[in-house]
């Protein structure tokens, strides 16, 4: 299916990726260069890296899949999820992150609260990054295997086809390792900018061809029932929309707790803004990122919608590839039925209906519309997105490991060169651990589900801690620490007492008792987050009131009421954070109305 031109395009890309790492090596002399890119990157570059670090496998493949499954309502993840949170972090939170000169998010927690709060956050964050990078690798290798595009070269080497999985993991690991090892965060950020433009260049023609084929947005509306093409109509009740969530759970759970928790406190993205060359550039980073981000639904969700709207294809070729003789049951549009990897039979739900493999929406769109040549570009874009997701996790991991764990608790007061070396070593063992996690995901599917659940419990309350820490000077270290623990416990408790409709008690919830059944898994997730946040918020306030407040002199630059507002008066309007923020919010309101 692939010809020489596709391979050449992929090779050229890898040469550039490694070339950038090599070119940046000579500028990486101190630990500050390696972990913070010497705080020398212009705002627009940080902004694009800010989105790109999040554009991993889960984002591109997952958003296309959700587009096919839920329709345009998936845009809520952007238009009430990401954008308001990105605006908030740029306008209100960045002055403390950047202004405090903290080198990482956990380090901010130590400056603001105490050592134990930092240790809790650093250790849970480092563990999570390694596992998410592993899951990302696993998803990539699995997808490459399912698509059968790389089978030919592996077979030519005389290896069994199953080696595509191993080759995918090892190659991605080596490339990401090489460019981060050489150039550190600068190299990751530069590559993320490249990856951003590649993803756009690979997906834009796909959307254009797809829309041309179905007759534009109006043609798409005519092909699909109206549940797919409206994002707000039907949100009044959880039973009248495809997401299975009502507006309040959506706005509070996704729009407030989960999105603010991710975009405002996750070091993976915040690190990109901390690398900016000035305070005003750091504040502009998420705001600049907001503009391309709000257009991403058209790039990643629309292909999913188009895939489901096209006339159904027979999947005989896929079934033949899987080596099964069963008559392939029909998928919908370009979405094939989900196949059990063990038996080769289609997966059915409790009512015997065939489940669809939505994750193949975007890859099948690429194979459907792209002839050889541009297919190489499309696949390169897909690989680029996998690698940027991994690299984001790895750079965040090596920084938190070196500064917040190694330098703080294992080997303080070593020379800067020592920490630079440690950062490079951490890159190697971070990637080695990710590979281990990827194979673990391959062996035990349930362990990964459980780990992701635990991460959700740990993450959901975080934003309450930051909100109180930055905007209420009375918040104490004991308050923050016990609040975080209480929030995590609340999340676990809520999950153990509720179930999504149609699921059995276990990993999906209800392991203590079933007090409430949610119409969908998404609704359950959103409400778990709401409970976790509220638990953390209340306990932090109560414990803070009962314990001694921190000295005000030590909180200057860390808390809103004790910090001078950054001056922006001399800047032209397009560099003023508040003006950019208002424009971004206005455009998002318009987008919500258009697709209501």
């Amino acid at each position: 299916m692939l010809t020489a031109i596709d391979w050449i395009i992929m090779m050229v890309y890898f040469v550039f990726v490694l070339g950038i790492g090599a070119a940046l090596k000579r500028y990486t002399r101190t630990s500050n260069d390696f972990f913070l890119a010497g705080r020398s990157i212009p705002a627009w570059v940080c902004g694009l890296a800010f989105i790109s670090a999040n554009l991993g496998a889960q984002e591109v493949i997952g958003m296309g899949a959700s587009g096919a499954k839920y329709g345009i309502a998936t845009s809520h993840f952007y238009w009430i999820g990401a954008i308001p949170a990105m605006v908030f972090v740029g306008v209100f939170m960045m002055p403390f992150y950047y202004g405090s000169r903290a080198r990482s998010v956990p380090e901010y927690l130590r400056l603001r609260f105490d050592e134990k709060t930092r240790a809790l956050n650093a250790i849970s964050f480092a563990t999570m990054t390694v596992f998410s990078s592993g899951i990302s690798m696993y998803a990539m290798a699995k997808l490459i295997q399912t698509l059968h595009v790389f089978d030919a070269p592996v077979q030519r080497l005389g290896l069994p086809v199953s080696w595509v999985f191993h080759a995918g993991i090892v190659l991605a690991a080596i490339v990401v390792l090489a460019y981060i090892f050489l150039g550190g965060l600068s190299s990751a950020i530069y590559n993320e900018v490249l990856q951003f433009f590649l993803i756009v260049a690979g997906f834009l023609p796909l959307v254009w061809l797809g829309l041309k084929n179905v007759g534009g947005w109006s043609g798409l509306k005519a092909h699909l029932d109206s549940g797919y093409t409206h994002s707000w109509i039907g949100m009044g009740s959880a039973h009248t929309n495809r997401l299975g969530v009502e507006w309040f759970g959506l706005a509070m759970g996704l729009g407030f707790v989960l999105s603010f928790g991710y975009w405002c406190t996750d070091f993976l993205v915040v690190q990109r803004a901390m690398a900016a060359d000035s305070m005003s550039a750091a504040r502009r980073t998420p705001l600049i990122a907001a503009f391309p981000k709000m257009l991403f639904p058209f790039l990643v969700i629309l292909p999913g919608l188009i895939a489901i709207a096209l006339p159904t294809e027979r999947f005989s070729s896929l079934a033949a590839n899987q080596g099964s003789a069963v008559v392939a049951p029909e998928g919908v549009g370009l979405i094939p039925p989900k196949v059990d990897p063990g038996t080769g039979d289609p997966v059915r739900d409790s009512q015997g209906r065939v489940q669809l493999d939505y994750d193949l929406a975007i890859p099948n769109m690429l194979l459907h519309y792209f002839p050889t040549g541009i297919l190489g570009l499309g696949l390169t874009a897909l690989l680029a997105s996998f690698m940027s997701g991994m690299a984001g996790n790895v750079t965040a991991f090596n920084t938190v490991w070196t500064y917040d764990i190694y330098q703080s608790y294992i080997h303080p007061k070593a020379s800067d060169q020592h920490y630079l070396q440690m950062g490079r070593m951490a890159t190697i063992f971070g990637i080695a651990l990710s590979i281990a996690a990827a194979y673990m995901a391959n062996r035990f599917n349930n362990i990964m589900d459980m780990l992701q659940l635990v991460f959700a419990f740990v993450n959901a309350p975080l934003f309450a801690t930051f909100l109180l820490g930055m905007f209420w000077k009375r918040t104490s270290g004991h308050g923050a620490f016990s609040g975080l623990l209480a929030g995590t416990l609340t999340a676990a408790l809520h999950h153990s007492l509720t179930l999504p409709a149609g699921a059995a008690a276990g990993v999906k919830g209800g392991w203590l008792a079933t007090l409430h059944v949610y119409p969908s898994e998404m609704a359950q997730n959103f409400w778990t987050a709401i409970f976790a946040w509220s638990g953390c918020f209340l306990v932090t306030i109560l414990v803070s009131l009962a314990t001694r407040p921190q000295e005000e002199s030590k909180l200057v630059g860390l808390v809103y009421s004790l910090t001078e507002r950054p001056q922006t008066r001399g800047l032209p309007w397009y560099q003023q954070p508040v003006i950019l923020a208002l424009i971004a919010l206005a455009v998002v309101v318009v987008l919500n109305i258009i697709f209501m």
Partner: protein
Amino acid sequence: MRLDIRLPLGLLFLVFGLLLSGFGLTGDQTIYQRSLQVNINLWWGLVMIGFGLVMFVLGRRGHRRVSSDDHGTEARGKSASEQE
């Protein structure tokens, strides 16, 4: 920032654009059935060449400004030390 990211970015898109449009012009024309009879390699290749050129030119301009600034400070530093 010593290396302007627009240089490698522009260069990458130029190379991709040339490869795609070259292949679109000379390669087999029957493969375009799947892309709705549009020679997508040629057209998208040309778009990429355009974008690559713009980025490359902007990058060159930015790069030159930065390096001339560097020379400027170096020269000033030298003359100051020579005066001593």
